[in-house]
């Protein structure tokens, strides 16, 4: 919310600098996004009159303008906007001007046509972040004048971010009241002269049948207006506040809302039929809103209606048919207090936000409902002429939040804040409208009606904190708790120790990516409101995210990529849904690069398998890798499920080559994933005496059928090799020249040891014979 300095000064005689005011506002809890300084920078932007407008010969969207800026020669300017025509006055940045954004205007050619300057929107003048075309200046703007001077743009503007609890501060008046109380300066409301009532003008009668939701509703008819542009000073201040001038009536209502805080509405009286009722909508009732949307309303929605139809969704938006337009001569003004929760619910139901709804939702000051009606009437009659009828009122603004009292013990507030709250602070709170009463430790506070947010003792502690300032609260370390800290898991840390870079990818992926590794079993969880299709489904595997990361890195000329991610995967279950913690790996390209000591080597299955095995081993676990050709997205013959204990805890394999190609990856890609929630607790080892007698090693080489599983071979060696056997492994594997087709040569190295004696030749011969027999029996394998 933007507030020009002069708006505040209209209520409080502030003498401090804008920077000092900004500091005070921050201390009071009003976040200052920026203090925009005087706009000397727009010097050189002048009021220009468009005398001719022709299409650019070579560009549909550009126009060639002739503009009079009060000099002897008119300027030829090429312009891309569409909202201006001959006779309009617009701001023209002349050659040499430096705009607030830093752009320096030079003579230039646009599509072959020379342009001697630039026509400006609010954006170029630094008045708004976006705009729908050129800023059209009032018709009476003097041609050639400096726009900055004409619009009196030379003043500081506070850009504030008002917290949702302070509806009373979404306007200049509320902010000024806080500043006045804080500084001990007088606060004066804007006075409006008594308005003469024309008895010939009959305001519609007002009935409120949903009294809870609209505790006070006022209407007043004004007849015989001539819709005019609002005066230049008002247009300028609205622009500084970030609001675009539209027409006299709308501008005045916006001005009253921004300064006084009361959202108002104007109906074209000639479109209304009979009296006005504020009521709950009938289920299915039609409403064609001002923004063009056609709504079917629900019971409970608060509406303003005449005798035929709904003319406004209360506090949110008027109807298209009843709005003020060019030809309007008679109007009905509305000023009301609508219950915040009611407005909020309707706003959410129809996703329909307006400046008015934002204020009603946060709670407006009940005292301003009538004040705003008087001020708006006076301003409209002053600008547009006309005469006004009586105000029709239903309800009592004075009853809203009346007599609200909060009482509590002072010591409770002091213990919450950790600092004493001397009675001197009550003076400041009294200036903010609170009626403070102390009786020993008992504090009783009458809360002003505009402070919808103060209802419980803790709210008072916040008010005290605001006026005492957080800096006055000491900084104390509390006594330390004795909770034993939980030892953090080291899942990702151990993966990283294995040479992988930790990745963090989004938890949502595209539906197509989801299908790469998981069949469509109806268990996906999709977002109802995704940012894009690429981020629309909660992932069930981390692999697509890692593949995307791998693609990006390979595109950036990385010879190899080794990534690991710890995160969650999500799926539906019978009970609703589940989140599982997983650890995933991806490896592709070179694992070793060309070096003086060796040649580059591309990653293969066993690089990744080794990483997973080591990772499991570190936590006292053993994985069994069981070949599985049926895993979606993985290449048959190079994929396995990973059993840990009795759980099928993960998968590993080579990504299907067609699938890898979808990620533009030519090199083999290997991926693994472990479900961390399924891993059993690793066992801590028990001590065993270390052997004192020497061990011996023997090698045996057999010819096996090619499809043999080395795990099965080693298991057979271990079970058949006798009780002295300590260890066995495959030390050589060969299926090249000299090995018959369909066969593979495996070299088995096994160790023997006895805890009580040195082994003899006979011992190792016996073990060898046993193993030879076992290989023959189990695999039909012969010594080579």
């Amino acid at each position, binding site marked *: 919310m933007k507030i020009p300095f002069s708006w505040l000064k209209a209520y409080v005689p502030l003498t401090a600098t804008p920077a000092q005011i900004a500091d005070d506002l921050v201390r009071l809890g009003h976040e200052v996004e920026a203090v925009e300084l005087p706009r000397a920078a727009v010097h050189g932007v002048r009021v220009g009159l468009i005398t001719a407008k022709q299409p650019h010969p070579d560009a549909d969207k550009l126009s060639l303008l002739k503009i009079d800026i009060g000099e002897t020669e008119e300027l030829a300017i090429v312009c891309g906007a569409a909202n201006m025509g001959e006779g309009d006055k617009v701001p023209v940045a002349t050659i040499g001007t430096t705009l607030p954004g830093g752009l320096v205007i030079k003579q230039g050619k646009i599509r072959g046509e020379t342009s001697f300057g630039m026509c400006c929107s609010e954006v170029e003048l630094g008045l708004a972040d976006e705009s729908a075309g050129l800023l059209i200046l009032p018709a009476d703007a003097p041609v050639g004048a400096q726009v900055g001077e004409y619009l009196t743009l030379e003043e500081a503007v506070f850009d504030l971010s008002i917290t949702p609890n302070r509806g009373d501060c979404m306007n200049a008046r509320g902010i000024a009241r806080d500043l006045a109380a804080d500084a001990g300066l007088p606060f004066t409301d804007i006075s409006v002269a008594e308005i003469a009532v024309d008895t010939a003008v009959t305001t519609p009668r007002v009935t409120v049948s949903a009294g809870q939701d609209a505790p006070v509703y006022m209407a007043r008819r004004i007849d015989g207006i001539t819709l005019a542009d609002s005066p230049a000073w008002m247009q300028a201040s609205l622009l500084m506040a970030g609001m675009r001038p539209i027409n006299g009536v709308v501008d005045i209502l916006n001005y009253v809302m921004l300064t006084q805080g009361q959202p108002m509405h104007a109906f074209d009286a000639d479109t209304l039929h009979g009296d006005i009722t504020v009521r709950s909508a009938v289920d299915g009732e039609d409403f064609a809103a001002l923004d063009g949307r056609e709504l079917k309303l629900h019971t409970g929605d608060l509406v303003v209606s005449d005798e035929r139809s709904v003319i406004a969704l209360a506090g949110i938006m008027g109807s298209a048919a009843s709005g003020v337009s060019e030809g309007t001569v008679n109007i009905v003004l509305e000023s009301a207090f609508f219950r915040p929760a009611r407005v909020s619910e309707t706003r959410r139901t129809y996703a329909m936000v307006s400046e008015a709804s934002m204020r009603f939702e946060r709670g407006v000051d009940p005292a301003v409902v009538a004040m705003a009606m008087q001020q708006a009437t006076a301003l409209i009659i002053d600008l547009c002429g006309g005469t006004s009828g009586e105000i029709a009122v239903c309800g009592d603004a004075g009853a809203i939040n009346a007599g609200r009292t909060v009482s509590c013990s002072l010591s409770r507030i002091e213990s919450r804040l950790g600092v004493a709250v001397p009675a001197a602070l009550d003076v400041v709170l009294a200036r903010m409208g609170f009626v403070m009463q102390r009786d020993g430790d008992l504090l009783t506070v009458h809360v002003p009606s505009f402070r919808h947010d103060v209802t419980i003792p803790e709210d008072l*502690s916040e008010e005290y904190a605001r006026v005492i300032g957080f800096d006055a609260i000491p900084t104390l370390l509390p006594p330390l708790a004795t909770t034993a800290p939980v030892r953090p898991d080291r899942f990702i840390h151990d993966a990283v120790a294995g040479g992988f870079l930790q990745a963090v990818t989004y938890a949502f992926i595209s539906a197509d990516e989801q299908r790469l590794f998981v069949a469509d079993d109806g268990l996906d969880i999709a977002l109802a409101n995704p940012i894009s299709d690429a981020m629309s489904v909660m992932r069930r595997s981390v692999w697509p995210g890692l593949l995307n990361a791998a693609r990006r890195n390979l595109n950036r000329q990385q010879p190899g990529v080794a990534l690991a991610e710890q995160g969650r995967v999500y799926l539906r279950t019978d009970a609703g849904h589940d989140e599982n913690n997983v650890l995933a790996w991806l490896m592709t390209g070179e694992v070793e690069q060309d070096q003086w000591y060796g040649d580059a080597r591309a990653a293969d299955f066993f690089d990744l398998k080794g990483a997973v095995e080591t990772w499991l081993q570190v936590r006292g676990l053993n994985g069994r890798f069981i070949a599985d050709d049926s895993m979606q997205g993985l290449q048959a013959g190079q994929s396995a499920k990973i059993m840990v204990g009795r759980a099928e805890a993960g998968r590993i394999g080579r990504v299907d080559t067609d699938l890898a190609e979808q990620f533009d990856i030519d090199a083999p890609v290997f991926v693994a994933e472990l479900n961390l929630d399924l891993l059993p607790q690793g066992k801590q080892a028990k001590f065993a005496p270390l052997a004192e007698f020497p061990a011996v090693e023997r090698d045996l080489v057999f010819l096996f059928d090619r499809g043999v599983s080395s795990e099965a071979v080693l298991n057979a060696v271990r079970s058949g090799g006798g009780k002295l056997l300590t260890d066995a492994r495959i030390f050589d594997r060969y299926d090249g020249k000299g090995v018959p087709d369909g066969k593979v040569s495996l070299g088995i190295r096994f160790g023997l040891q006895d805890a009580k004696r040195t082994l003899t030749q006979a011992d190792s011969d016996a073990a060898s014979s046993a193993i030879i027999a076992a290989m023959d029996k189990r695999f039909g394998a012969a010594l080579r």
Partner: protein
Amino acid sequence: MSEIDSLKAQLESLQSEALSAFDSAADSAALQLLRVHYLGKKGALTEVLKGVGKLPPQERPVIGQYVNQAKAVLSAALDRCEATLSAQGKSARIEAERIDVTLSGRKLPAGALHPVQQGLDEITAIFAQMGFAIAEGPEIEDEFHNFDALNIPPEHPARAMHDTFFLKDLTHGDAAEPMLLRTHTSPVQIRTMKRFLAENGEPPLAVVAPGRVYRCDYDVTHSPMFHQVEVFKVDRDVSMAHLKGVLKHFLSTYFEKDVGIRLRPHYFPFTEPSAEVDISCVFCAGKGCRICKGSGWIEVLGSGMIHPNVMRSVGVDSSEFSGFAFGLGVERLVMLKQGIPDLRLFFENDVRFLRRMGVPL
């Protein structure tokens, strides 16, 4: 010449012949052959001793003495030459085995923790050392835990500011209320308190809860997924002064310097009073720079005293107990500490970035 003189002369010439042979031996192996040739069981000296038999018995000891002397001289010379040759051989070997120690070592591939992970680890460690227990919670949440229990009822304007991701056709229990992705780690406050109270009856408890959170907001300075850490403590007589103490200790420890902190009154539905917390700018030491927009202060987190409605939603008597809570954005703190200019770098997973940020500075 007498027999004894002749033997003596024979010995002397043998000794000088041997000494010069030793000196010119090329290596240890040659020297070993010479040792056998002169001093061995069948060596030249033993041959000389064989001539002793021809001498009269009284002269024999004299020659024996000469032979022993020669033996000692030759042995000593052999040892000396042996030592010299071995020293020469070793230095030749050393020279032959000289390497270029500036060549690269055989490196194991180096992994690296993601900078967000490093931040999470550091932050949780600081609180763990202060006695806060680590807790986690689900990312798929219901509206009660994400909003209602935190004093954000459906009509509350703050609820609209949360840019919530809702999940399609996934509801909470039998209710029609849609499930959502948590927008902050504060629901862990609710879940942890409920669990703790069920087990222990009443406070005190102090918890640090790290995790991923989601907001439907995606541009240069917003990521739809990011990380937060929720910190809270509930006990008797917990005050804002304690909140300030914990914040000061945490922020100074994390930034490894004595940072100034400033609390500004703010509004959060789940705390009362609420405060935004600024630190003195870590880039300009508070003098004012581009990063802090000249103010000398940088906003880092939101905090406050837990609202009595939140206490009530978990069944804590707020007239007896009080607590503070704050939530911080991990990416933001890491960016400030490590000078990372762009939020998007965290989620691109460019290995050059990951490697660079993985090396301790």
